């Protein structure tokens, strides 16, 4: 047994410590596996905050890197243990501790999986909107740590808007509780929202208090077939400018629809260049009114088709196809780089045109598919082959996309976080002074530099 394995099994049950190469291999990367991978030296499966506290105290003492991991669905290499050390798999801490109807709040352990939690909440007539498309498996701790969003971002915001309080184990093993269960709080620096989106670099989140909403009684899904990308982009701003904020508003291109058609009956026509998947929600009267308004905008802008899906079960097949879209694309392509640049909503048509010109000038396939309603349209570079030429072009395309997005008043990450994948561009958005401040904050939390080192900014990030 290695020294590390021996030390860890002195702290924890031996069943919760794994050091075989097979187990370490399973924890080497997230969904940007092609970008970075590195097996840790040990995987630990804690079940209590006290166990985590013991591990962190030991790791601080020995200066061993510790990387928290939820489901490993991240799209920024956030949970990739780039400097080795210990991976803390949080998924055994998965209890839903409380759903409080009166206060409309919930308290969960951070390894709780989002999808089942949402089902539980909805069965009580309540609603937890954040819906990263990995919701079947991603953990609430991972969602909080990346400020995950999804199709519902347009109307309901992202995970960050629902976090009221946290229980955190700090790198020296100290446990703190930030925030609480009140919907308003004004006490000191807002550490709750500093930890939210910290990508595991400041401490380990063990419990989360979440705000809930009443479940809207009526839902209606519709698909709009658009002749051009441009028309789709115009529709997005017009629908909202008319006063309807859809619960979801997603942009999908025709290539993607062809793949999705395998699970849709009847299949969608493939004549359009772009498609908008949308859902209206609210009271039945509100949904009716919004549907009429949607119809009139589609008529005015001459959309090719508006398909209203009446049946809820059928509607779910559309949303499932949408959820699975990213991995489904790998049936056609060898690799795909998903970018997360987000622009203000009124700049979507400009951004789409700019993407088309970047793709034409470099001869690349750039897919667009994402949360159009909030400007987060995930430009994705598709690789029919993998070769050096394409890799170089893709690199150039990413730089241009990021520049263009920033020039339009956008941001380099709407929801995936920076991790390692986007660290290169952090300085473009934040500048040196802000990064220096971030590093001082990091140092205050983690003077020994053990928490998920090597992330967010390039070089020298670890204390």
């Amino acid at each position, binding site marked *: 047994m290695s020294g590390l394995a021996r030390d860890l099994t002195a702290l924890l049950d031996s069943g919760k410590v*794994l050091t*075989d*190469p*097979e*187990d370490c*291999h*399973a*924890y*080497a*990367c*997230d*969904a*940007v*596996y092609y970008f970075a991978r590195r097996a840790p030296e040990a995987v630990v*499966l804690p079940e209590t905050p006290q166990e985590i506290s013991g591990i962190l105290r030991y790791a601080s003492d020995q200066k061993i890197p510790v990387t928290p991991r939820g*489901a*490993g*669905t991240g799209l920024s290499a956030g949970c990739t243990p780039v400097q080795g050390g210990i991976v803390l*798999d949080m*998924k*055994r801490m*998965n209890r839903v501790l409380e759903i409080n109807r009166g206060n409309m709040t919930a308290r969960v352990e951070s390894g709780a*999986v989002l*999808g089942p939690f949402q089902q539980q909440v909805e069965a009580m007539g309540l609603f937890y909107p954040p819906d990263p498309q*990995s919701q*079947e*498996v*991603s953990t609430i701790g991972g969602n909080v740590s990346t400020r995950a969003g999804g199709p519902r971002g347009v109307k309901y915001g992202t995970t960050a808007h629902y976090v009221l309080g946290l229980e955190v184990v700090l790198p020296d093993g100290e446990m703190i509780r930030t925030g609480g269960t009140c919907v308003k709080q004004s006490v000191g620096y807002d550490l709750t929202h500093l930890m939210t989106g910290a990508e595991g670099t400041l401490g380990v989140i063990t419990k989360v208090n979440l705000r809930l909403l009443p479940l809207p009684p009526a839902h209606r899904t519709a698909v709009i077939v658009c002749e051009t990308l441009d028309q789709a982009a115009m529709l997005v701003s017009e629908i909202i400018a008319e006063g309807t904020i859809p619960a979801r508003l997603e942009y999908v291109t025709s290539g993607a629809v062809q793949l999705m058609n395998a699970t849709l009956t009847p299949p969608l026509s493939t004549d359009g260049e772009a498609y908008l998947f949308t859902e209206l929600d609210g009271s039945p009267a509100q949904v009716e009114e919004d549907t009429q308004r949607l119809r009139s905008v589609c008529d005015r802008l001459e959309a090719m088709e508006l398909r209203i899906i009446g049946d809820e079960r059928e509607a779910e097949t559309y949303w499932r196809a949408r959820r*699975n*879209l*990213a*991995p*489904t694309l*790998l*049936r056609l392509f*060898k690799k*795909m780089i998903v970018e997360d640049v987000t622009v203000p909503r009124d700049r979507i048509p400009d951004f789409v045109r700019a993407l088309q010109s970047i793709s034409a000038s470099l001869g690349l396939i750039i897919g667009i598919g994402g949360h159009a309603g909030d400007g987060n349209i995930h430009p994705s570079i598709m690789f029919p082959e993998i070769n050096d030429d394409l890799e170089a072009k893709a690199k150039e395309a990413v730089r241009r996309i990021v520049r263009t997005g920033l020039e339009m008043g956008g941001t380099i990450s709407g929801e995936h976080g920076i991790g390692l994948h986007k660290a290169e561009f952090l300085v473009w958005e934040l500048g040196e002074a802000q990064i220096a401040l971030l590093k001082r904050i990091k140092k205050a939390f983690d003077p020994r530099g053990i928490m998920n080192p090597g992330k967010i900014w390039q070089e020298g990030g670890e204390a």
Partner: protein
Amino acid sequence: MRHLEDYEDAISRCFHCQICQAACPVYLQDLLETYCARARLGLVQAVFLEQTLNVTPRLREVMDRCLFCTRCTRHCPAGVPLDDVFALARENLGKQLGEQGRDGGAWTAPDAGVPGPVAGPLKSGLGEIPAVKGPVRARVAYYPGCATSRLFQDTGQAVLRVMSENGVQVMIPEGLSCCGFPAYVAGDLHTFRRAMQENLSILSGLDVDAILVDCASCGMAFKVKAGEVAKGDGAMEDQAARVAEKTWEATDYLNHLGPVAEPGAVAGVWTYHAPCRIGWTPTAEEAPEALLQDIPGAQYEALETTGACCGAGDLFHLRHGELSRSIRTKRLKEIRRNGAHTVVTQCPFCRYYLQQGGSDLEVMHPLAFLARAYGEMREA
């Protein structure tokens, strides 16, 4: 025959989306990522294709702790054929470790009372095939697998009875043997292929409208896996295609044809447990409800999760008792919450294993439930 190298491209399609975590009964029980399909796939790639990891006892343990439920393959949006890769990995492992197929030797029948593969020709033992009532609407061949031939003859008798009531003329071909799926699961692809060759040569020559099976695994073997192991052998590919085209799960077939017999009343609450390996036909999961809901007095209560495993996994439960029992406990809890006394399912392993864990329940094939309703009709 296919080799792991033939799957290199398919393996590289994995997006690491982790969606297979939600599908895998073993992962969901152990909550250790090593056991989810994505990680297993990565290990196969590293050990057998990239040669960056070695064959170790831990690797064997990881690859063995898989029910071969095929749920990961069914759920993978990228279309990675995970179970085919796992079968080949088991084959390679067996060769490197100098072992024969696992599962206690795929061809020896386990203890009496436990369903499992039978060596030699299948003796159906189902008695006389009842005469068709009314005009003949279809002619079919029935493949009663090992479990029905040896242990659960009631399923076979029910299939014969129900078909005859509905104008379907059934014949049971001579000389059939085990479909070989247990050998496939164990990574003994050679044996699987040989068994398939024998069966295909009989079944592909029949002049029938359909070939019926009562077991999800036999169906998957004929519908999907036969074609996979036939690749590269033109004649066998043709036979496999012909048989695949005609293969139906019996409940699904009757529902598709449309029943004509009127069932009598059977009182009680029943539910449907969909076997993991029924994924080869999308309609087989809808058939039991469609077909049985008209039985007077019988009340259908759907289970909350349509796709949860019972934990059996052929003979997996004999080697991984604790894990299998934990998986079964979750499923039984759900069944009991739902209030059903009768559970219908199209898999003899699910039937056996759920029944072992739930003496307060009765578990049977959907057509056995229908046959019971027909029985009531006759007595009335």
